[in-house]
């Protein structure tokens, strides 16, 4: 047995710097990473296996737990996939509510990202602020769905409940409050010379390779490539709302951070527009008894934009009351394994957790 020359560093699973229960095994020489290896499977719950034993509606309880920081896009994507298979129409009001909820989910996930990105660089104050303010979004969710994290709100055919009374006002107020707080956050983080020094030129994803590597979402837009599912294949009410997809050149942590900074502002504006335009009418096309509900045979590939990037569901039905196969393509699937293993070598140990946070690696999406 020959002992390795490089020092081995286990970043995770029990480590303050890792983004979830995963492990990045680093081989380092000096403080430079020579080789990085992602190890996942610590969170494997066999969702896709379990869903095959649940009926179409029961799957929702499992689906939203695919990725904890942002459960709603999972529900939305799956609901849209089932709708596509079944050819079920969604009322206009439900489309708007879905848009609002998924944008709220984006905002709360962005606020968590603020915490993660600043916390991994040692600026804990911002994390305390933003994660604390995230509770206001969760309050909105709670009023709307009854739960803080896992909502199971968006079902095939619409949403589970209509907006409660006074919710719209509350949503407006929350948006106003957040917008005010965002200037504080950005002053603290983006105007900070040290953060700039840390973030610039670190964890670069090359622009010409980005799409081929499977990079999606903010990391892709951080390389200057404009790609957003909400524009490429508009779903729900996005084609009726005005918003900009920010892009920045550079491909480093700094560019990704700037993209996210602008996106959260866009999300707030989208919510405002959707609340303004919210049409009346029904919010739900009733589905039959879920125990006996069958979906016509076929396959569907549906994509949605989450905070970490594009997520997709590949759903196959064999015409029974249970899905044949539900396969999630998480945004972190490429980010967390192959992209990470490509961009980490050559980086400083100090930047590993920083890069992980900026890529938005979410292990449960990888192993499900």
């Amino acid at each position: 047995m020959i002992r390795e020359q490089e020092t081995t560093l286990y970043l995770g699973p029990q480590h303050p710097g890792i983004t979830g229960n995963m492990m990045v095994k680093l081989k380092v020489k000096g403080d430079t990473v020579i080789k990085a290896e992602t190890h996942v499977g610590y969170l494997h719950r066999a969702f896709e296996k379990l869903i095959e034993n649940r009926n179409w509606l029961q799957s929702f309880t499992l689906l939203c737990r695919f990725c904890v920081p942002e459960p709603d896009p999972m529900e939305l994507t799956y609901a849209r996939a089932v709708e596509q298979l079944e050819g079920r129409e969604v009322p206009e009001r439900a489309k708007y509510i879905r848009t609002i909820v998924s944008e709220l989910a984006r905002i709360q996930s962005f606020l968590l990202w603020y915490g993660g990105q600043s916390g991994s660089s040692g600026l804990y104050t911002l994390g305390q602020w933003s994660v604390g303010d995230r509770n206001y979004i969760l309050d909105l969710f709670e009023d709307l769905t009854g739960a803080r994290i896992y909502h199971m709100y968006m079902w095939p055919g619409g949403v589970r409940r209509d907006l409660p009374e006074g919710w719209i006002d509350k949503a407006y107020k929350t948006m106003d409050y957040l917008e005010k707080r965002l200037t504080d956050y950005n002053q603290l983080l983006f105007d900070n010379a040290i953060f700039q020094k840390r973030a610039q030129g670190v964890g670069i994803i090359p622009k010409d390779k980005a799409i081929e590597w499977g990079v999606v979402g903010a990391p892709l837009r951080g390389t200057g490539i404009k790609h957003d599912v909400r524009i490429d294949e508009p779903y729900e009410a996005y084609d009726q709302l005005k918003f900009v997809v920010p892009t920045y050149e550079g491909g480093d942590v700094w560019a990704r951070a700037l993209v996210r900074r602008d996106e959260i502002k866009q999300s707030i504006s989208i919510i405002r527009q959707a609340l303004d335009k919210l049409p009346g009418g029904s919010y739900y096309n009733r589905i039959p008894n879920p125990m006996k509900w069958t979906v016509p045979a076929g396959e569907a590939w549906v994509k949605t934009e989450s905070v970490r990037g594009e997520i997709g569901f590949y759903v196959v039905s064999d015409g029974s009351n249970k899905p044949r196969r539900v396969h999630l393509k998480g945004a972190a699937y490429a980010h967390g394994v192959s992209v990470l293993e490509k961009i980490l070598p050559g980086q400083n140990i100090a930047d590993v957790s920083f890069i992980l946070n900026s890529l938005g690696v979410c292990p449960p999406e990888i192993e499900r």
Partner: protein
Amino acid sequence: MSNFKKETKILKSLKDVFEIKGSVKSDKRISIKADKKNVSSILLFLKNQKGFIHLNHISCVDWIEQNEFELVYIVWNPKTRLTVMVHTRIKRDEPVMENIDTIWDQANTYEREFREMFGIEFPGLIGAKEFILEDWDNIPPMRKDFNSQQYAIDTFSTRPGRENAQNVREAIQKRSGEEIPDFAKKYSRD
């Protein structure tokens, strides 16, 4: 709806080169069925000639009734924003599929996963044998003939009270002897 001009063009060019069956499923979705041995050349063709440089997804479905696995390669063109889904079927008895991680690096991750979860072999695949599971000694778990619940009961010690978890409300009712409350009735449909 548009008349799928772009989509049919791609489909036609594919049909010119390869022996495939295919159809335009919906807006921006082209679905083709190909033979196992053609898949990698189709993917290379799509990537190099037609600009489908982004590998969106690879999925695997176990069709135990036909004794086949279906592999679905979903590729995407960032310019035209079209998606091509390449289906292929391989025998369950000899689950071997061509390795495409030379075309897209991230295919390696998918293939390692399928090797572990379905038992499909990809000759020449680099990477640790254990990707998600650890010390797995049963049949690959994502195969349809693997019974997860039975395995769980055999392996893990469970707490009593969960034997009949399918009908929770009934179980509660039986145990407590209470009626199903009104608000709950409202949501239960028949």
